[in-house]
């Protein structure tokens, strides 16, 4: 692990040695990985913890009295405690593990429909015609489609915040949009396409006035900046392991304890029950109630190791590093002729994810030429098609940064874009 005395900075060059994949070549060039908003790379510390778990402590959890089962359970529950501490949750029992952010969001959506379908459902989760759910035009499909489907199932209405030209949430209609009919507001904390970081404080305040719940999609924020659920004042957040140095197959729903207790089960199966008879079953308290079946054990352990790694760096330092790279990149990209940035043009209130267009050149072609230079960026609608529609493009090219990103890599991107313009100019 590569931390320095100064808590707000770390040695990126030294840290890169922790990431085996950064040593590989792509098409004869050193890998320049600028697609961390899509999925991050993993340090060997994480891989080693996972391997050690497999080679020493593998057993199923919460089901065995034997030593391996006990060790596996301690490791799994230890990961839950690390997650809770990382986002300053009051209790580890407020942390529900699932396979990704998408599942976490869908879990809440199905808790709403199950509560709505049953007579005894908690009123905060009961939805029907006339009720409203509010999202934004900035959502990842994973924080949009689940609510569209929920509205279809329940007859509720979906409404949304629009976006400003600068790529920010347009909160001018807040009081009209979030009103007495609103049961839930679910918005993204940091946009995966525009890089925008939303401050949810006004939304939370308004939601409290009208008695609506608030969910924050923290898939892009928890990996990149300090997140404190108590300071945010929201009711639910979702995030995903693979974007924060952890493995795929693990995601987190955090929810306020009393809300989780009020939510009906969604998935049935092993480990979420209290007692089962053929005629009917009763259910365990949260978080077990929402973790049916064998959970992603080694994946949770890997996420715990990723959190250790990030905590050692310090999330303030992680964010400071990305701000530096982002400022450098915004500046460097502005030197590329015909390049247009979507989203905030300044480093304030944004993270290290930059979407752009080169006039007249399709993102697929941009990405392909860059890949030929070893520069890996994402092209497409980034699972946020309404944002593309909003800004009148079918797709964008996106570069995204993380703890291991260097200014030299940004330079390689800019050089690559010159070649793109040569091939397609």
């Amino acid at each position, binding site marked *: 692990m590569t931390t320095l005395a100064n808590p707000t900075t770390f040695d990126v060059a030294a840290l890169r040695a922790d990431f085996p994949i950064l040593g590989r070549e792509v098409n004869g060039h050193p890998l320049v990985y600028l697609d961390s908003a899509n999925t991050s790379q993993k340090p060997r510390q994480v891989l080693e913890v996972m391997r050690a778990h497999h080679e020493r402590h593998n057993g199923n959890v*919460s*089901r*065995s*009295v*034997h030593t391996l*089962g*006990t060790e596996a*359970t*301690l490791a799994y529950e230890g990961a839950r405690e690390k997650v809770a501490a990382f986002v300053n949750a009051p209790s580890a*029992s407020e942390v529900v593990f699932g396979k990704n952010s998408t599942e976490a969001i869908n879990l809440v959506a199905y808790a709403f429909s199950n509560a709505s379908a049953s007579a005894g459902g908690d009123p905060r989760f009961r939805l029907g015609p006339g009720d409203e759910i509010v999202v934004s035009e900035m959502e990842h499909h994973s924080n949009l489609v689940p609510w569209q489907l929920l509205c279809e199932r329940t007859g509720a209405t979906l409404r949304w915040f629009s976006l400003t030209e600068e790529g920010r949430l347009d909160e001018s209609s807040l009081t009209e949009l979030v009103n007495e009919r609103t049961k839930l507001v679910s918005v993204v904390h940091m946009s995966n396409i525009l890089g925008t970081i939303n401050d949810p404080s006004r939304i939370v305040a308004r939601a409290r006035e009208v008695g609506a719940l608030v969910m924050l999609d923290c898939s892009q924020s928890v990996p990149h900046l300090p997140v404190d659920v108590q300071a945010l004042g929201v009711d639910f957040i979702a995030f995903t392991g693979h974007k924060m140095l952890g493995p795929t197959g693990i995601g987190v729903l955090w929810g306020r304890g009393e809300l989780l207790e009020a939510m009906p089960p969604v998935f049935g199966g092993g480990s979420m*029950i*209290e*007692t089962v008879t053929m005629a009917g079953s009763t259910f*365990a308290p949260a978080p077990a109630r929402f973790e049916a079946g064998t959970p992603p054990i080694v994946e949770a352990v890997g996420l715990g190791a990723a959190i250790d790694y990030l905590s050692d760096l310090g999330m303030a330092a992680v964010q400071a590093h990305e701000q530096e790279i982002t400022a450098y990149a915004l500046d460097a990209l502005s030197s590329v002729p015909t390049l247009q940035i979507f989203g905030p043009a300044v480093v304030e209130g944004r993270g290290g994810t930059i979407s752009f267009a080169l006039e007249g050149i399709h993102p697929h072609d941009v990405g392909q030429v860059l890949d030929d230079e070893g520069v890996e960026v994402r092209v497409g609608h980034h699972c946020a098609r309404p944002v593309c529609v909003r800004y009148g493009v079918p797709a964008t090219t996106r570069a995204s940064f993380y703890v291991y990103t260097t200014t030299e890599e940004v330079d390689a991107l800019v050089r690559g874009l010159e070649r793109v313009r040569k091939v397609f100019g």
Partner: protein
Amino acid sequence: MQFDQLYQEIILEHYKRPHGRGLREPFGGEAHHVNPTCGDEVTIRVAVAGEKLADVSYEGMGCSISQASASVLHDLLTDQPVGEALKVHDAFVELMQGRGQVEPDEELLGDGVAFSGVARYPARVKCALLPWMAFKDAAVRAGVVVGPEVKA
């Protein structure tokens, strides 16, 4: 050896020859708890008379640890002043959740001290606590005012 600390003679004794077993009348509150992972069950009844627990009776089915724990609970709490009983309860819970780091108070816990070794077996802590959690619920239902929830 760790294992012998788990199955101390006292525990095996209480298991094989439980004290005060059986559900008795009258009682002020009753609670039935189940350990969902293994199906162990216990029912506890609490009878309060004035400031005292006149009787703590129980019935259950389960492993040596949970059954011995119920027997010890009966011994320790029956005839105790309510405040004292709750102190014993809290001390026992603290001991069980201490992962083997808590020094038990012999004065307070009597035979309960024998459960120190259980605290090193996370999978068995729930067994030892089962009757104590049920006791607390039963006591509340019998009108006893207790402090904040303790989680097993």
